[in-house]
């Protein structure tokens, strides 16, 4: 299998600031997501990385600056930017797993009947839960629910797949498995992915570029090229992990001096 080709810029954010309820969550963020790449947003909890992702999805709008998809400013949420959330309740509880995908195809792509079912089955096969198609979401494990959500999101052939800490609520073993499988899914589909995480290991393992965000009001401190470190056993992987850690975690002495300065 050939690796998907990473191409020209697809999503460009420039000077993005986002405020809500009088709170400035993101302050002047600049980033470029290239077509076909896996782009990771990493930062401390509550730093605004989810806010930025929601703005790409269209749930929030920048108060300053702009986010463009293929040169066009992002509008309302739509199936060309499907989102996979962290919560396990994102599949509709009243539909079977297969029906969740079939329904989404009907709403977003006007695809119905056997064609929709065939496509839905293919998507469940892609994420490895074809056998669970007739089950209701509450009958699945957390990992399988996330796979179902990924299947539904990919079925709509989005121009970009947005993932908000999709594996954040999973146990460590399931999480590692899903990280591996997400890479395989990406190789098969070549879909552009923006993934939010607070795991350094996940960021380096999955990302081609990792944008490191500061605490609120968040800015992007540095965008690190991690495309050469997809193998966890290499020195490069360690080096990049250390580099991200140094950007994210302030040493005690530095924090102390910051505190004294504030006081």
């Amino acid at each position, binding site marked *: 299998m050939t690796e998907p080709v990473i191409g020209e810029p697809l999503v460009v954010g420039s000077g993005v600031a986002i405020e809500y309820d009088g709170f400035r969550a993101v302050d002047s963020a600049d980033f470029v997501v290239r077509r076909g790449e896996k782009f990771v947003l990493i930062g401390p909890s509550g730093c605004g990385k989810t806010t930025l992702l929601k703005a790409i*999805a269209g749930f929030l709008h920048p108060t300053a600056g702009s986010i463009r998809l293929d040169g066009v400013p992002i509008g309302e949420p739509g*199936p060309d930017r499907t989102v996979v959330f962290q*919560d396990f*309740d*994102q599949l509709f509880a*009243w539909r079977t797993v297969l029906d969740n995908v079939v329904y989404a195809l009907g709403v*977003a792509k006007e695809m119905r009947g056997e064609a929709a079912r065939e496509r839905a089955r293919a998507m469940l096969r892609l994420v490895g839960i074809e056998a669970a198609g007739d089950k209701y979401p*509450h009958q699945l494990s957390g990992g399988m629910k996330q796979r179902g959500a990924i299947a539904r999101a990919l079925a709509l052939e989005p121009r970009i797949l947005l993932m908000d800490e999709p594996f954040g609520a999973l146990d460590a073993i399931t999480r590692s498995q899903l990280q591996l499988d997400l890479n395989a899914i990406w190789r098969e589909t070549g879909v552009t992915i923006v993934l939010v995480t607070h795991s350094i290991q996940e960021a380096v393992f999955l990302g081609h570029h990792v944008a490191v965000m500061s605490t609120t009001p968040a800015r992007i401190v540095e965008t690190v090229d991690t495309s050469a470190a997809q193998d966890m056993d290499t020195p490069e992987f360690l080096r990049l992990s250390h580099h991200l850690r140094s950007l994210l975690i302030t040493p005690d002495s530095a924090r102390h001096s910051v505190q004294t300065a504030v006081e």
Partner: protein
Amino acid sequence: MRARVRDPWLRLPAPLRYAIVILALLAIWQAYVSFSHVSALLVGSPLDVANQLWTDVANGKIPAATLHTLHTLLTGLLIGALIGFALASLAVFSSVGRDLLAVLTAVLNPLPAIAILPLAIIWFGLSDRSIIFIVTLATIWPVAINTDTGFRTISATTQMVARNLGLRGPRLVVDVLLPAAMPYILTGLKTAWAFGWRTVVAAELVFGVAGSQGGLGWYINTARYYLQTPQIFAGLVVISILGILVEGLFSAVESRTVVRWGMKR
């Protein structure tokens, strides 16, 4: 693995246990009537009541009265539920709708629907339309309040998924909001049924007094008029049995919906 039950009573199957309790209560009732020499005008014996039930089911009186009551009740419940859903949907989509629902609920919900009956009679006369009107009023609020609560407790994630798919308007309500709020909606419908049921029987009793005809309340009131005490009991038994059947109906609907979907155990 089932734990061994020490209590011998609990080893019996549940339907058998309930049957025994019911039979024992009936036996006590029968013994009281047989041995206390209480006037048959005051208390009918279970055998007399069963006899009367049989006669009035066979001659069509009870089926006709039951159908009449159910027809009135279901008409009112249907109108009330639709208005309730509409109000709750309006409250989700607009802040004016939300305030409208809040005000209407606060003002009208505490009113027992039966208290509106005199006004309804002035407006609609001694007709079924009066009863349907007050049943509607009795059922709007439980449906509206519970549906509204159900809509408001839908998770932010579910709402974002719906928006992400591009759902809006009526399709959003029917395809996502209603099923997601189903546990609350069923609770609302159950409460509405109970309110409507009480209201319709009470109204029919009043109508019986006023000389109009039809329904189980009227059946009971006529029996009182002729001092047919077993017939009064028969009417009460029918009302009770219908209540149990409807409870069963709701359980069946729940097990096919919210229980299957894992929203309720």
